[in-house]
C-alpha cells in the first residue's frame, strides 16, 4: 500500500463525499423514506469506492452507516437501530464498499503497471538512442550517467575495468562513497558474483550505494556505483529491474566501443608501420643518391694523381656542393615533416608582406632555379599577411623546387598573388607536363611521385605534403588548379583577418606624400 502521505487527502475526500450525501439527505429528509436516504448514502460510498482504494471506501461506508444510524434511523440522534432490517442496509453498504474498493485498486494497479512498463521501455529506448549517438567512450559514459541519475534520483559513477583493479588496489577511489567499508565490501561482492549488490538489493543491503557490475559478453567491463539521494528508501523491484536493464545496455555499448577503439588503434599502428617502412626505403634511397655522388667526387679529387683539368675539378666540386645542398633541403623537409606529423608544428605568425618570405625562398633556390626564368607578380597593394616566415619560406622553396624539377629546362615559372575577400591567394605556375587529371588531390599524399619508374631519386615525395601541413596550420588551403594539360598551377590561400595592430596605412602613405 501507499504511504500515509498520499492517502490522507483520499480519506478527507471520502469524508467530504459522505458529508455532501448527508447534507442532501438532511435537506430532503421530510420527503425521503429512510430507504431512499440509504440509497443516496450508498451512492456516495460507490463514488468513493470507484475513485479511491479500499481504505477510503471502507472509511466512507462506516461513516455513512454511522450517519445513517445517527440521523436518519429513529430514534434520531442516537446510535441504535430498532429495526433489524437496517442491519441488512449496513451490511450491503460494507460489501459494496469493499467490492468497489477492490475493483478500483486492481484497475489502478494495472494502469500503474502499464505506465511503469511504458516508462521502462521509454527509458531503455532513450538510453539506447543516446549511447548510439555518443561519438566516443567518454561521451557514452556521460550519457549513461545522466540516464542512471534520472532513473534513481541518485549520483552515479562508472569505474571502467582498466582503471578499476581489485578493490584492494590503490587505484580504487578513496573518495566517498568508496571510503566506506560496506560499499567496498558490496563492490567486491558485486564484481565477484557479477550481480548487483548494496542499496535496494538483497546482497549487502546496508551499503550506502548500489553497485552494479557492467557485464560484457566476455568479461566485466566495469562497475556502476549509484549513490542514492535518500538511502532510507530502496528502489522498487520494478525500478531496480529497469536500472539493471539500463546497466546491461551500457555494458554492451561500452564493450562494443572499447573493441572498436582497440581495432582502430591497431589499424592506425599498422598504417603507421607501413608508412615508416615506406619512409625508410624512400629515405635510404634519397639520401644515399646524393651521398654516393658526394663520396665519389670527393674521393676522386683526393686520389687524383694530377689527371683532372681545372674544369674537371670544378665540375666535381660543384657537384659536391649542389648535392649537399639538395640533401640539406631534404633533411630540412624531413624535420618539418616530423613536426607536421607529430602535431608539434607551432606557427609563429607575424604580419608581413608576402614578398619577404618569397624573396628569401627565391634566394635560397637561386641555384636549382638557374635553368628557369622566374617572374613574380605581386600587386603593390597586397595586404600584410599573418604568417610564420620560416614555414612559409619552406612552402615556397618546396613549390619552386617541384616546379624546377618537373619541367624542362628553360620553361618559365610564375609566382602570382592577389587579394580575395578575407584571404590572399598565391599561385605558383609552371609550363611542365602538368599533373595527370584525377591526381590533383593525390599529389598531396605522402610519398607521391609523378612517375616513380621514370623519375627516380628526385625526393621523398614529401614536399607538397609538408606544404599542405604548413598551409593548413595557418588556417589556409592549398590545391592544384585544373590546368587542362597546360602546366601545373598550385594555389594556396592564406586567411587575412583584421589588420596588423597599430599599423595605420594612412600614416604610412601620408608620410610618403609629405616627403615627396
Amino acid at each position: 500500500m501507499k504511504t500515509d502521505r498520499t492517502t490522507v487527502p483520499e480519506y478527507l475526500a471520502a469524508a467530504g463525499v459522505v458529508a455532501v450525501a448527508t447534507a442532501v439527505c438532511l435537506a430532503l429528509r421530510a420527503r425521503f423514506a429512510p430507504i431512499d436516504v440509504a440509497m443516496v448514502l450508498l451512492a456516495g460510498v460507490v463514488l468513493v469506492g470507484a475513485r479511491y482504494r479500499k481504505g477510503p471506501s471502507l472509511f466512507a461506508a462506516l461513516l455513512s452507516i454511522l450517519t445513517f444510524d445517527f440521523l436518519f434511523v429513529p430514534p434520531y440522534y442516537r446510535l441504535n437501530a430498532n429495526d433489524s432490517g437496517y442491519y441488512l442496509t449496513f451490511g450491503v453498504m460494507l460489501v459494496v464498499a469493499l467490492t468497489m474498493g477492490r475493483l478500483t485498486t486492481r484497475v489502478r494497479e494495472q494502469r500503474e503497471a502499464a505506465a511503469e512498463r511504458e516508462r521502462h521501455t521509454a527509458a531503455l529506448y532513450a538510453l539506447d538512442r543516446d549511447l548510439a549517438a555518443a561519438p566516443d567512450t567518454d561521451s557514452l559514459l556521460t550519457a549513461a550517467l545522466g540516464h542512471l541519475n534520472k532513473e534513481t534520483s541518485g549520483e552515479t559513477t562508472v569505474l571502467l575495468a582498466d582503471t578499476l583493479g581489485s578493490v584492494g588496489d590503490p587505484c580504487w577511489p578513496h573518495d566517498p562513497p568508496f571510503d566506506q567499508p560496506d560499499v567496498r565490501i558490496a563492490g567486491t561482492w558485486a564484481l565477484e558474483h557479477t550481480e548487483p549488490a548494496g542499496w535496494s538489493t538483497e546482497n549487502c543491503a546496508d551499503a550506502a550505494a548500489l553497485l552494479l557490475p557492467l557485464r560484457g559478453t566476455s568479461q566485466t567491463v566495469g562497475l556502476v556505483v549509484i549513490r542514492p539521494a535518500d538511502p532510507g528508501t530502496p528502489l522498487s523491484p520494478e525500478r531496480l529491474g529497469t536500472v539493471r536493464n539500463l546497466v546491461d545496455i551500457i555494458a554492451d555499448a561500452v564493450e562494443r566501443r572499447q573493441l572498436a577503439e582497440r581495432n582502430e588503434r591497431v589499424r592506425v599502428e599498422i598504417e603507421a608501420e607501413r608508412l615508416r617502412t615506406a619512409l625508410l626505403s624512400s629515405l635510404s634511397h634519397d639520401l644515399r643518391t646524393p651521398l654516393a655522388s658526394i663520396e665519389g667526387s670527393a674521393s676522386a679529387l683526393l686520389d687524383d694523381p694530377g689527371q683532372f683539368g681545372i674544369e674537371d675539378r670544378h665540375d666535381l666540386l660543384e657537384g659536391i656542393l649542389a648535392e649537399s645542398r639538395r640533401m640539406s633541403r631534404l633533411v630540412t623537409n624531413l624535420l618539418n615533416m616530423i613536426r607536421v606529423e607529430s602535431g608539434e608544428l607551432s606557427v609563429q605568425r607575424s604580419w608581413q608582406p608576402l614578398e619577404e618570405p618569397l624573396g628569401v625562398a627565391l634566394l635560397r633556390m637561386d641555384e636549382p632555379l638557374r635553368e628557369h626564368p622566374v617572374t613574380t607578380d605581386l600587386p603593390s597593394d597586397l595586404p600584410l599577411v599573418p604568417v610564420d616566415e620560416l614555414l612559409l619560406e619552406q612552402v615556397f622553396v618546396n613549390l619552386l623546387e617541384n616546379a624546377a624539377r618537373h619541367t624542362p629546362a628553360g620553361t618559365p615559372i610564375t609566382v602570382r598573388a592577389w587579394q580575395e575577400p578575407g584571404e590572399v591567394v598565391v599561385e605558383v605556375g609552371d609550363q611542365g607536363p602538368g599533373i595527370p587529371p584525377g591526381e590533383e588531390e593525390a599529389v598531396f599524399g605522402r610519398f607521391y611521385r609523378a612517375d616513380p619508374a621514370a623519375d627516380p631519386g628526385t625526393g621523398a615525395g614529401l614536399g607538397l605534403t609538408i606544404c599542405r601541413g604548413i598551409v593548413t596550420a595557418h588556417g589556409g588551403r592549398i590545391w592544384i588548379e585544373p590546368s587542362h594539360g597546360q602546366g601545373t598551377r598550385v594555389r594556396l590561400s592564406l586567411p587575412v583577418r583584421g589588420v596588423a595592430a597599430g599599423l595605420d596605412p594612412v600614416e604610412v602613405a601620408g608620410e610618403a606624400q609629405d616627403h615627396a
Partner: protein
Amino acid sequence: MPNPLILVVEDEPHMRRFLRTTLRANGYHVVEAATAREGLMQAGGRNPDLVLLDLGLPDRDGREVTRELRRATRAPIIVVSARGQEHEKVALLDLGADDYLTKPFGAAELLARIRVALRHSAQPPDALEEPVFLAGGIMVDAIRRQVIRDGEEIHLTPTEYKLLATLVRQVGRVLTHRQLLQEVWGANYTGQTHYLRVYMAQLRHKLEADPTRPRLLITEPGIGYRLREEPARSRIDSR
C-alpha cells in the same frame, strides 16, 4: 691588421677541421677549443681578434657563454648554429654577439662574415660618416642625407632614410628586428616588427630592381635584416 687570431669554439672535430683549414688558407691564425670552458679560458688568455662560437656546445648554454665571453673579450663574436634555432640566435645577437652563420654554410659566406666583423671592430663606433657606395648603383651620402640611384636622387621618407642609414652604418652585418626597431623607432616599438617589415618593403621598392629578389636589403628569416655590401660574386656563393 696582420694575420688576425680567430678563436674557434666548436665541439664537432670535422667542423673544426673545415674551419681551421679554411681560415689558415686565408691567412688567419687559429686557436681551437672543443668546450665552452676551454673557449672561455682561451678567450681570456690568448686575446683573439674574433670568436667563432658554436651554439650546440655540450657543456654550457649558449647565452651564458656569450655573456661570459663578452666579459672576457671585446672581440666580435660570430655564432654558428643549425637552422631552426632562430630564437636562440636572436637572443645571442641581442646579448652582444655580432653576427651568425647557419649550418650548413660555405667558405665564402664564412670569410665574408669574418671580414665584416673584423672591419667593424677595428672602426671606432663614432667614425666619421662619409658617402658610402653600395652595389646596384646606389650611393648614400650621410652628410647631405641623400640617396642617389643611377645618378638620380631617390626620395625617401625620414623613417625610410633613418632605417637605411642604420643599415649602412652596420653594412654587411646582421641587425635583429629589435635592434632596428630600437634604433629607428625607439625602445617602445621593439615589438612592432610589422612596422619594420612595411618600411623595409617600401625601401626595397625604391632601391631594388626586383623587390622580390633583393640584392641589397637581405632578409635574414626569423632574425632581422642585413645590408649586403657587395653583389653576390657568383650564383653559387649566394647561399
